[in-house]
């Protein structure tokens, strides 16, 4: 067994229990300044009925224990800061640290959403400039920064479409969604009150335009398309697709999750998209933070503007900015307050760092994906041979013969010092390996990744058992997810701890 691994070696990993297992009554990690007004008796102020004596089983630990506890936990995570994180469709790029600093400034982090607008001009100017930048990048006419994440952006977009169609007399019944789409698309369409009709991709992984022509009837409200698709392929006939929809009065929604392939190179507004969302936590570098927060601004064509969710950022005659809630045709409010403002700040900081040079980031992302594709073609099966944009999708077809699947390869990649790619998605590729390196990877890091993937392919051929039981170097092995779901234990308690 020869598996020299260049990118990783073993290190000490500390064991650490749950914080509840460290607690001891009387320990504290937080002191308040002394109370400077007379203390009231809670039982009197609230009434005995309402009063609580404190939260049962809440931790009682000291500050150093808290710091150490979470620091130790952190060392069990892989992260972009450690190395390449090639999760397809997730755009795990470098999260610039200056963005963290500016989001924490007094006057930005400290602001209350209900404070007078005269004191909010700084925050509103940030929102305004971000809106302008995103409109320039997408080629659209109007924007809302309200949605909290991509899925809420999708919902907002579909509600805009519904409101517009209703305004014209008929909201229609169906939303068409390609079989390669993100799972959020169909789930969102249902919340927007639409039936979902899945449409199949053609043999090149593209939307079958002739088939689409048959499917688009007066019942169809919209097509939700991801472009480039989750195969990493640009929909070459996107303008024809838009035309087919528009001819029947239906609209084209674009899931902008893959905008990292397009920024600065082409604009959805120019190729027929009516409404789209962006994921600021993908294309615009705001940190994923282990699963959020994100932000999902929605850009749209002019005719959808009256329906934007409240509040709408407007400029008064005096040049003063304000958030306007008086929008009679609005779809309503999708989230309390002013969007995930702290995320918006970080995204603007990212855009300002690049300026028009954002095109270079896109080019490097596409360069990396194609470089990896070139080196791994033949080593792994490539089910769709159309040109790749920012990500490439292989399958485990060649390794399957030895009983090694995409999940096994992914787990073995951990031993080689990388985070796995996205496994088993898109659904139209059985055993998919979906690789998105992003522009943040150097040639050296790409080469190490390629070496690791080649080594694993060799291992799969000669020592499949090694790959099937990976990872071998992590502090825990593969966890029994089936047992965990059968008898879910979702919290610690005195009795089950």
């Amino acid at each position, binding site marked *: 067994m020869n598996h020299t691994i260049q990118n990783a070696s073993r290190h000490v990993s500390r064991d650490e229990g*749950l914080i509840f297992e460290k607690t001891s009554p009387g320990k*504290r990690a937080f002191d308040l300044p002394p109370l400077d007004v*007379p203390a009231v008796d809670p039982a009197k*102020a*609230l009434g005995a009925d*309402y009063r*609580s004596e404190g*939260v049962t*089983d*809440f*931790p009682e630990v000291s500050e150093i224990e808290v710091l150490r506890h979470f620091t130790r936990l*952190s060392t*069990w995570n*892989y992260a*972009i*800061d450690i190395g390449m994180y090639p*999760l397809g469709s997730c755009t795990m790029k470098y999260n610039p640290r200056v963005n963290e600093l500016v*989001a924490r400034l*007094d006057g930005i*982090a*400290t*602001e*209350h*959403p209900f404070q007078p607008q005269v*004191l909010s001009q*700084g925050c509103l100017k*940030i929102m305004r400039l971000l809106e302008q930048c995103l409109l*320039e990048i997408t080629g659209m006419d109007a924007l809302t920064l309200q949605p909290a994440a991509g*899925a*809420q952006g999708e919902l907002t977009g579909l509600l805009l479409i519904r409101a517009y169609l209703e305004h014209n007399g008929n909201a229609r019944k169906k939303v068409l969604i390609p079989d390669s789409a993100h*799972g959020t698309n169909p*789930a969102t369409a249902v919340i927007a009150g639409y039936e979902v009709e899945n449409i199949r991709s053609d043999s090149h992984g593209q939307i079958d335009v002739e088939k689409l022509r048959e499917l688009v009837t007066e019942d169809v409200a919209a097509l939700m398309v991801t472009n480039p698709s989750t195969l990493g392929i640009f929909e070459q006939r996107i303008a024809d697709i838009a035309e087919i929809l528009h001819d029947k009065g239906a609209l084209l929604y674009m899931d902008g999750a893959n905008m990292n392939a397009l920024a600065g190179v*082409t604009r959805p507004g120019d190729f027929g998209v009516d409404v789209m969302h962006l994921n600021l936590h993908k294309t615009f570098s705001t*940190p994923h*933070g*282990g699963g*959020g*927060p994100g*932000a999902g601004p929605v850009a749209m064509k002019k005719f959808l503007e009256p329906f934007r969710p409240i509040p709408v950022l407007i400029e008064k005659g005096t040049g003063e900015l304000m958030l306007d809630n008086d929008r009679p045709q609005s*779809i309503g*409010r999708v*989230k*309390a*307050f002013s*969007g*995930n*403002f*702290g*995320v918006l700040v970080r995204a603007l900081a990212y855009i300002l*760092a690049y*300026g*028009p*040079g954002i095109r270079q980031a896109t080019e490097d992302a596409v360069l990396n994906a194609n470089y990896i594709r070139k080196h791994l073609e033949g080593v792994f099966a490539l089910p769709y041979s159309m*040109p790749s944009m920012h990500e490439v999708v292989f399958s485990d077809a060649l390794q399957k013969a030895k009983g090694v699947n995409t999940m096994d390869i992914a*787990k073995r990649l951990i031993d080689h010092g990388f985070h*796995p790619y996205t496994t088993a998605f898109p659904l139209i590729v059985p055993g998919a390996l979906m690789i998105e390196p992003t522009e943040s990877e150097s*040639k050296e890091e790409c080469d190490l990744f390629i070496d690791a993937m080649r080594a694993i392919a060799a291992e799969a051929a000669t020592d499949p058992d090694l790959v099937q039981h990976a990872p071998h170097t992590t502090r825990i092995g593969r966890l*029994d997810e089936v047992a*965990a779901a059968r008898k879910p234990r979702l919290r*610690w308690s005195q009795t089950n701890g």
Partner: protein
Amino acid sequence: MRYLPKSPAERDEMLATIGVRSIDDLFSSIPDRFRLREALNLPGPYSEPEIIEYFKRRAKESSVGYTSFLGAGVYNHLRSVVTDTIIQRGEFLTSYTPYQAEISQGTLQAIFEFQTLMCQLTGQEVANASMWDGSTATTEAVLMAERITRRRRVLVARSLHPEYREVLRTYAKNSGLEVEEISFGQDGSLNQKTLESKMGDDVAALVVQSPNFFGVIEHTPTLADRVHARGALLIVAVTEGVSLGVVRPPAEADVVALEGQSFGLAPSYGGPFVGVIATHEKFVRQMPGRLAGQAKDSSGRRGFVLTLAAREQHIRREKATSNICTNQALCALAATVHMTLLGKEGLREMAEQNLSKAHFALGELEKIPGVRRAFEAPFFNEFTVSLPRSVDSVNQLLLREKIVGPLALDAFYPELPNHALVCVTETTTRAQIESLSSELRMAVALASEAR
């Protein structure tokens, strides 16, 4: 560009390996007529100091230097530097959703601890890994109640945060839900008579907030009895989590939708915050959002995984319990660290300080002629007063004294003209309360003369 790790020579080398002449060849699948010829018109590129300078300029056009008495769903509480130290660790900050459990145990265990803390806080049995915020958590709780009861009418307290009600309406509109409001009574709590008249066997849930938007604590055990008698669920929204350090948790509720901003998250002009849904174990399969669960590896070692994914959109697609994917994980981590730091005693003390300061503030304001407490029911750190003049006119004068006055309620409740919602937390000093009181006394008098 400093974020891009390639030299021009490396780019050329990579292009040569791929077998193309120029980078443009890699974009050949985009029809020529849609390829941009000109550079985008964007500000930048800026160096790091220029970026900081830009945002510092914006940060000056703000409320810095003002004392604020605003709450209404967004609260100023003490935060520890430890929390920010932890959440800025790259291993937490720059990791993805923990789908690969073996190299995400840090995030997964922290989520498990978050879920536990949320259960302890709310008196519920299970809690999820986070929702976008309190408003969407409340809405998702309603959709959950619809799935559980298969009923379509929802009764919503008018004293639920107005923006939460608006979000609920946006979502309800296309899901066939009928939303009806229940007014508030003389004492500021839910009007039980209206509830009785609107309650029926077709009601999926009653939604109340406690403490409610006016600061009043609802008597949730009574409401639970009323609602349960008709087979409906009680959903309790909590916008001020710190209250639970001294107010008994709504354990009798079927679903609690909590906004966790009070636990270590800055106001940040309205987000990002962290919502959570907590409920009974029997409803867990109808719950939206991610869940971390305990598991074992083949050697019997304890670890944590995302579990019960069969509810979620990436598996169930159009049949999922919700469309939520990205949630507020890092905010949930901040709340976890913050609550762990506070601990049992710290949370109790913080809550009692809020209670004491708010009651002191009410006492001070009540001394002003014409200022009256609006609602008699018990309150935590927010209370409603009526002023002899319009709140806006008074606030204009307070602003000159660098005070951001209490929230004018008439924008949300036309039936409450001249009513103001005052928020006082442990961060508000006695001197600031006394200053509000004396400036308000003058403002009321001045506004009165101005008439």
